[in-house]
C-alpha cells in the first residue's frame, strides 16, 4: 500500500532539466536531445507502460463518454432479471442484485471511482507541492515549521487516517475526497521538500542567485523542472493507492452511497450475492485492481525512463 514510506528519498540528478542547467544528452554522433525527449524515447520503447497507458485511456474515455455509448440505464432496476450470468443476451456482463446492467454500471462507475482516485492526488499535489517547495527553498524556521506539522500527519497509517477523517466528517463523496487529500498532502510535501532541498544546494542555483535572479525566477526556471520528475513518479503511485483507498471507503459505507455506481460500493452491495453469482460479485473489484495496477506499472515505467530513485 505504501511502497515508499520510510524509504529515504534520493534523486538521480545526472540529467537536470531546464535552462541553463539543461545538459543535453548526446545520443549518437551529431544528435542532441533534451531530457524530456530522452524520457519520451524510452517510454515509447516500453511496451508494459504503453499498454497500461492504453488501458487507462480506454477506461477514462469509456467513463467520460458513457452516455453516448448506447448502454442500458445503469440505474434502471428490474427484479425479474436479477443476477443474470455473464454473457446473457443484452447484458454482456450480466446483471446485479437489483437487475441493473453490470457492464453499464462498471463503465459509469469509472466516473466516480477514477475521479475519486485522481482528484485527491491533484489536490494534494497543489497543496503539498507548494508546501514542499516553500519548505525546501526557504530552509531554516519555515522548513522546521512545515516539516514538523507534516511529521505529525505522517505518523498515522494512511488507511486509518482516511477512515478517521471520513468517519468523523460523516459519509459522502466530498468528505471522502477531503479525507484522502489530507492523507496525501504530507506525503507529497515530504517528497517535494526533499528534492527541492537537494537541488537548492546545487551549483547552478548558486550561480543563478549570484547573477541576481529572484526566488520566484529560480523556482520557476531551475527548481520546478527538476522536482517535476520525482514528484510525478510518486504521484502516479499515489493515484493507485488512492483508487484502492477511496473504493475502500465506499466499501465500508463512508464514500459514495446507494444507488450510485461506484466500484467499491458495488463490491459491497454485491457481497450478499457471493453464493448465487460469485463471478459477478467480483467484477467491481476487478476494475479497482486493474486501474490500480496500471497506475503502479506506469509509475515503474516513468521511474525507469526518468532515472528517478524514490
Amino acid at each position: 500500500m505504501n511502497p515508499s514510506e520510510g524509504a529515504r528519498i534520493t534523486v538521480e540528478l545526472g540529467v537536470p532539466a531546464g535552462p541553463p542547467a539543461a545538459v543535453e544528452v548526446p545520443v549518437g554522433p551529431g544528435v542532441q536531445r533534451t531530457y524530456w525527449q530522452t524520457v519520451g524515447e524510452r517510454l515509447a520503447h516500453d511496451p508494459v507502460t504503453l499498454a497500461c497507458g492504453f488501458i487507462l485511456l480506454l477506461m477514462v474515455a469509456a467513463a467520460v463518454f458513457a452516455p453516448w455509448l448506447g448502454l442500458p440505464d445503469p440505474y434502471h432496476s428490474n427484479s425479474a432479471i436479477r443476477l443474470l450470468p455473464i454473457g446473457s443476451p443484452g447484458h454482456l456482463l450480466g446483471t446485479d442484485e437489483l437487475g441493473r446492467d453490470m457492464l453499464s454500471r462498471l463503465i459509469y462507475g469509472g466516473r466516480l471511482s477514477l475521479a475519486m482516485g485522481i482528484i485527491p492526488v491533484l489536490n494534494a499535489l497543489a497543496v503539498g507541492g507548494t508546501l514542499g517547495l516553500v519548505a525546501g527553498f526557504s530552509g531554516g524556521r519555515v522548513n522546521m515549521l512545515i516539516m514538523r506539522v507534516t511529521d505529525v500527519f505522517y505518523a498515522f497509517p494512511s488507511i486509518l487516517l482516511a477512515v478517521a477523517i471520513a468517519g468523523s466528517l460523516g459519509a459522502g463523496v466530498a468528505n471522502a475526497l477531503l479525507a484522502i487529500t489530507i492523507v496525501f498532502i504530507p506525503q507529497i510535501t515530504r517528497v517535494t521538500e526533499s528534492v527541492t532541498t537537494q537541488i537548492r544546494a546545487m551549483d547552478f542555483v548558486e550561480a543563478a542567485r549570484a547573477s541576481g535572479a529572484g526566488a520566484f525566477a529560480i523556482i520557476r526556471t531551475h527548481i520546478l523542472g527538476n522536482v517535476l520528475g520525482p514528484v510525478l513518479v510518486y504521484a502516479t503511485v499515489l493515484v493507485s493507492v488512492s483508487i484502492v483507498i477511496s473504493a475502500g471507503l465506499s466499501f465500508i459505507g463512508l464514500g459514495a452511497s446507494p444507488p450510485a455506481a461506484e466500484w467499491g460500493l458495488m463490491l459491497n452491495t454485491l457481497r450478499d450475492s457471493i453464493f448465487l453469482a460469485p463471478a459477478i460479485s467480483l467484477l467491481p473489484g476487478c476494475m479497482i485492481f486493474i486501474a490500480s495496477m496500471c497506475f503502479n506499472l506506469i509509475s515503474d515505467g516513468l521511474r525507469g525512463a526518468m532515472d528517478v530513485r524514490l
Partner: protein
Amino acid sequence: MLYYLLRRIFYTIPIALGVSLVVFTLVHLAPGDPLSAVVGELDARMLAEMRASFGYDKPLYIQYFVWLGSVATGDLGYSMRSGAPVLGILTDAAANTMAIGVLASALGFSAGILAGMFSGYNHGTWLDKTVSSAAIAGVSMPHYWLAIILVIVFSVQFGWLPAMGFGSESSVFSWNTLRHMILPVLALAAIPCAVVARTTRACVMEILSMEFVEALRARGLSERRILWHVTRNALPVVLAVMGLQFAHLLGGSILVETVFSWPGTGYLLNLAIFDRDMPVLQGTILLLSMFFVFTNLVVDILQSWADPRVSRN
C-alpha cells in the same frame, strides 16, 4: 549511539502530542453534537446535564487537556452505546487484531523475504519475472477484494473454512478459532508480502552489483558466506519496511475485519463510526496511531543497531 537513541526518543514526544491533538480535533470536526446522535429527542435540561457529565460544555482547549490528562492515566472514557469502559473494549479488540496481525506479518514477511532474495539472486530469469509480476499485483491488490475472493474460493466453493466470525470458544488458541483466522490472515498477508518481496529484491540486486561482493568472490568465499554478507547489508532497509508494514497492517485492518466480521480494532472502529460512539472512536484511533508512532521509534532504533551508519549522521 546513546546520543542518537535519546534524541530519537525525545523527538517522539512532540509527535505523540501532535497526534493526540489531531485525534482530539478530528472527533470534534464531526457535525452536530456527539451526544445528540445517541440521546435523540430529549428535553433541553437533560441534554445539558448529559453534556456536563461528558464535559462537552467546557471550551475545546480545556476539554483537550482534561482528555489528555485522563488518557495519560489510562482512562479513555465510557462507550456511549454500552456504557462499558473504552479501555476494556479496546484491549479485547486489540488482542484479536494483534492475533491475526502477527500471524499475517510472520507469513507475509517470511514469504516476501524468500521470494525477494530468490528473485534478486536470479535477476532476469523467468522465475524472477514471475515473482516481480506477482509482487506488483500484490501491491496494487485491493485487500478487501482479495478477502472476498478467498471467501468465495474456500468457503463458498469448497466449504473448507468459515466465511466470517470468531468461533464460539473464548480462547484464541483453539482449533475452531484458528480455522476462523486463516482467511483473514491470508488476506492481510498479501500486501506486506508483496512490498517486502519488492524491497528485498531491489536491495539484493543493488548489493550484488557492489564491488565488495566481487572482492569477496575474488577472495574465494563460498556462496553461502557471500549470502550472509548480502543479508547483513540488506537487513536495515528490509527491517524498516517490515516495521512500517506491520504497523500499516494493524492500522489498515478495518476493511478486512469488516469483510470477515472479525472482532478486532478495525471492526470496532467501523461500529463506532456508524453508531457515532465518539469515546470509542477517539480511543481506537488514538491507540492505533500511538502504536504506529511507537513502532516507528522501535524500527529506527533497530535500524541504527543493524546499521551503525544511521546513528552517525
